[in-house]
């Protein structure tokens, strides 16, 4: 562990580390463009020059290994002059695009120019003209004029996705970033290039000209699209999600996320979402009050169990719910006494980077919370069979994944026959068309709780946007059902429920929100996935 001194502060650095990450980790902000924690060192932007005692010239911190006894200065006049120089020269050809550039507000060029650059423009020369707003992929736009040729994106495509779509063509000041004709930037992770672009050269089409970034509020969360559980930051404003950005977590997703997950936020603000509970009194579903709907559900369940036995009730859980909600659901199930409980899970394609085949954020959590058939219980297929045979009288389906998983004929047959279908979901679906009761569900962005990813890492999600009309969360629905079904006063408060889980589920012993923290909590190895 070499000891080095940065700006008079003694710092212990890991051996063989480069100076720049060491400085950044210790709170010494050395400006940089081309360096990125997760990419190889390029060393071309020259912004991170620092002074090292005994070295005649300034050196770039990103490519200087730490040495025992190294004395580094980052604020000397020479360093400041060098930074001013890089800034001035970078801006010589930069287009006056701040007003129309989506990056304005989180642009490193702006930040560093204001902090380290010269105050006045000295150049009077015309600026370089290159192609603007070139569509380089289904989700990405390139503005060559804005590019400062840091080549982060090039390295991303070379080193992370290994797809090599981007390249720098020509030499000298004619250099420009581009793709080859016929080979668009279309990989599954293409929007990450917009994140790592320090300027507005690469922009995601989805966020293009949507909102100025300084309006955005940020809430840390976890991507709901697959069981990898990529850490994200939800950017929202006026109770609407505008974009999602990956949040660095070296144990899960490094600094990346896939395009599919990133763009999978529209459903939260969808106008066609279910907002009110509905009840089918006659042939048509009618909007009713919450108490009425829940009362009906509780009554139906209780009466069915009483008259036909617990085995005449089936519950199909959703792997999109949080651990806390699933735990509550488990309590409902055990109160009813039925063993017919399973989770419908969509399994699709995965890749070897981030995308996992299980297309739900909390499939592992659903298994861990016991929402799978126990001895003598029926799984999804068996439940549908039983329903079609008229043995199952009430089917309580959460989410619409079952529609994608089950054999359509079996499902239709089951739904025809089942006495009472209760559907709890975010959207209308063929299921709701056949339902007796429809309960609206909340999306992940509107609630707080935990997801367990495929590797058994428990991670927090936080409410980013407020639900409309004080719509209760799924956990709240289960708690109210519990209240109506049995004795006791159940409430739903994620912190408290997680404490209950900690004491009730052995694998989750000792878990709490504090322990989960921002970077998640890995369940012990012994608590292997029961799948």
């Amino acid at each position, binding site marked *: 562990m070499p000891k080095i001194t940065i700006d008079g502060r003694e710092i212990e650095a890991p051996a063989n580390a480069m100076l720049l990450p060491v400085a950044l980790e210790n709170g010494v902000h050395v400006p940089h463009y081309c360096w990125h924690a997760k990419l190889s060192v390029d060393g071309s932007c020259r912004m991170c020059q620092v002074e090292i005692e005994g070295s005649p010239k300034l050196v770039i911190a990103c490519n200087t290994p730490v040495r025992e006894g190294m004395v580094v200065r980052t604020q000397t006049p020479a360093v400041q002059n060098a930074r001013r120089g890089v800034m001035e*020269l970078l801006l010589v050809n930069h287009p006056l695009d701040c007003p129309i550039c989506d990056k304005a507000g989180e642009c490193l060029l702006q930040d560093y120019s204001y902090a380290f650059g010269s105050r006045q423009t000295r150049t009077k020369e015309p600026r370089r003209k290159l192609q603007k707003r070139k569509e380089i992929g289904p989700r990405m736009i390139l503005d060559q004029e804005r590019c400062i040729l840091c080549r982060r994106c090039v390295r991303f495509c070379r080193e992370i996705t290994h797809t090599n*779509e*981007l390249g720098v063509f*020509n*030499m*000298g000041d004619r250099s420009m970033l581009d793709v080859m004709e016929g080979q668009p930037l279309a990989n599954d992770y293409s929007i990450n290039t917009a994140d790592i672009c320090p300027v507005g050269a690469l922009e995601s089409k989805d966020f293009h000209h949507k909102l100025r970034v300084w309006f955005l509020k940020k809430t840390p969360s976890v991507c709901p699209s697959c069981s990898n559980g990529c850490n994200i930051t939800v950017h929202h404003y006026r109770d609407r999600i505008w974009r999602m950005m990956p949040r660095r977590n070296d144990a899960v997703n490094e600094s990346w996320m896939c395009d599919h997950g990133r763009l999978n936020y529209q459903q939260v603000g969808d106008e066609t979402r279910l907002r009110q509970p509905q009840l089918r009194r006659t042939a048509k579903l009618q909007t009713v009050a919450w108490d009425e709907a829940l009362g009906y559900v509780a009554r139906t369940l209780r009466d069915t169990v009483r008259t036909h036995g617990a085995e005449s009730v089936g519950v199909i859980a959703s792997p999109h719910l949080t651990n806390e909600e699933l735990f509550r659901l488990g309590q409902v199930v055990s109160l009813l006494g039925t063993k017919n409980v399973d989770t419908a899970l969509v399994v699709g394609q995965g890749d070897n980077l981030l995308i996992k085949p299980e297309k739900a954020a909390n499939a592992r959590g659903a298994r861990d919370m016991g929402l799978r058939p126990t001895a003598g219980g029926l799984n999804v297929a068996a439940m549908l069979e039983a329903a079609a045979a008229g043995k199952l009288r009430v089917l309580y389906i959460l989410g619409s994944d079952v529609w994608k998983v089950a054999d359509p004929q079996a499902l239709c047959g089951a739904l025809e026959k089942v006495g009472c279908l209760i559907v709890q979901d975010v959207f209308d679906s063929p299921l709701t068309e056949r339902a007796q009761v429809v309960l609206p569900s909340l999306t992940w962005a509107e609630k707080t709780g935990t997801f367990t990813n495929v590797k058994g890492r428990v991670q927090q999600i936080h409410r980013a946007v407020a639900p409309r009309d004080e719509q209760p969360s799924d956990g709240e629905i289960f708690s109210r059902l519990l209240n109506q079904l049995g004795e006791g006063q159940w409430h739903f408060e994620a912190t408290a429920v997680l404490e209950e889980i900690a004491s009730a589920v052995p694998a989750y012993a000792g878990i709490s929100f504090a322990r989960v923290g921002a970077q998640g909590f890995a369940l012990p190895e012994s608590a292997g996935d029961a799948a």
Partner: protein
Amino acid sequence: MIVEHPAAKKVSPDAAGKGRVLSPELRARIMTERGNFPQPRSALLGALHMAQEEQGYLSRAVVDEVAELLDLLPIQVQEVVSFYPMFHDRPVGKAHIQVCTNIACALRGARKLVRHAENKLGLIPGEVTEDGKYSVGEVECLGSCGSGPVVQVNNQPFIEKATIEDIDNLLAGKDVKREAQVALVPEGVEGYLLPPNGVSRCHIDDYVATGGYEMARKAWAEMEPEAIAEVVKNAGLRGRGGAGFVTGVKWGFMPKDAGKPCYLAVNGDESEPGTFKDRQILERNPHQFLEGVAIGVRAIRSNAAYIYLRGEYATPYRRLMEAIHQAYAKGFFGDNVYGSGKSCHVYVQRGAGAYICGEETGMIESMEGKKGQPRKRPPFPAGFGLWGCPTTVNNLETLTHVPVILRKGADWFKARGTEKSTGNTLFGISGHVNRPGVYELPLGTPMREIIEKHAGGVLNGRPIKAIIPGGVSMPVLTADKIDVNMDHDSLQKAGTLLGTGGIVVMDDSTCPVRAALVIARFFRHETCGQCTQCREGTAFFYKLLKRIERGDGALEDLDTIQSVTTFMEGATICALSDAAAWAAGNFMRRFRPDFERHIHEKGCPFPESFEP
């Protein structure tokens, strides 16, 4: 042009596919070339040269096909194609007339030739005549400054000291005279780099007759690598590529047992305006150089040398390849050389017109078939060079000294030149002198002697305005510094550097702003575009100087130049940025009154000056 290499491993080209544009022969040759290198990608530049020769230009289909042959992605090939000025990704004329407009040629009126050709064809640079026969291009330095202006048609030998009539003849399809460049060992100098005046020692027998390859034999058969390095170190031989590092010491940096192959990379990419010496060695004395290569390979415990030769040098390339064949035939190269049981191979790669590939790591990148962008250091080439292996990079002229040193001993060598700058060197002198050319002289020869005695004084006897002592990347000197000695230390004291020893003389008709502008244009054209300061700063200088030259400058622009030079010096991966800053900064500082006159008089105050 590529001759099948004796050492090439045979790689059979796959069966000709459909929709292919390259001829099967060419595909086979590319596959052969591919076998020359540890990594297929290294064959890229050669393959592109061949493909361009056959196809005229490198269309997308060619790019795709070359990529396929070399296991690359089209984008990797296209990046390289777009990087090198010699590769055309759009059609050019059957005769692509390239006129060098850099400083030495410009001083001799290159601009008039360009204008004449353009007017005659009714073209602007970059266009092709309707019949597809002709196109005109300006190029930055063809490496024949001593015989400027120089014109090259396609990749044929240069038309030196070109005139307007030459252009007319060319366009009329007639033969064009090709006058050779002056390259002499002046009387009283014991020359060893150049053969005796008027003699060309291209054939191996001529060379062997003078005791050639004896030292190579000795090195391989009798000497330990350390001993060779020691002799060369004692001789005080400093690299002739510009930086002047002691060659023996450099060889000592190579790891003793790296567990990987080591390579000797030879830098024959002289592309700096004012420098045109290596060409003379290759054209007239290639075997001495090859012997130096063989010794160098031994000295660093390697078994292969890769020579990187600039792409425009058609004749030197031919001569070199012939010499290599002769040497292989004689067993001076190959496996088990001189019965040592070791092998020593030599390979040649051609550059494609990028000056930056003269920088050692830029050259290594280029040799690996990539864009010639210098590498960041650390790691240094001695540990991580060609294909990740330890590599020593030596200048072509430097290696040419080595056999002589071994033959005659360090003391003999040290008797030439000055204490710290030993030996002879090839001084190239160009610009406004009566006898421009290459002269072999000991280091430390006074500049006045070179200009007035050897080069015959300034044209028309005019006074001197400015002298660039060692290629345009070295700071310019004013006329009063003419008495400086041409060695490393003296020049450093005078505020400049020896560089490659290419002297450019400008007489008093010369406008220093225009001279600075031409040089700035060169650096702008040749920067690799990696580091911010260099990419933007060189272009910034060019635009700014152009504005000042036009008469639209302001006094604060001069201060801007001054401060931008401080941003560019010592701040980038390689030294090109420094060179560009020195050139612009020193012209501005040393000729500030002339710059100010441009601003005050709103135009150029030198009516007789050359055109930039």
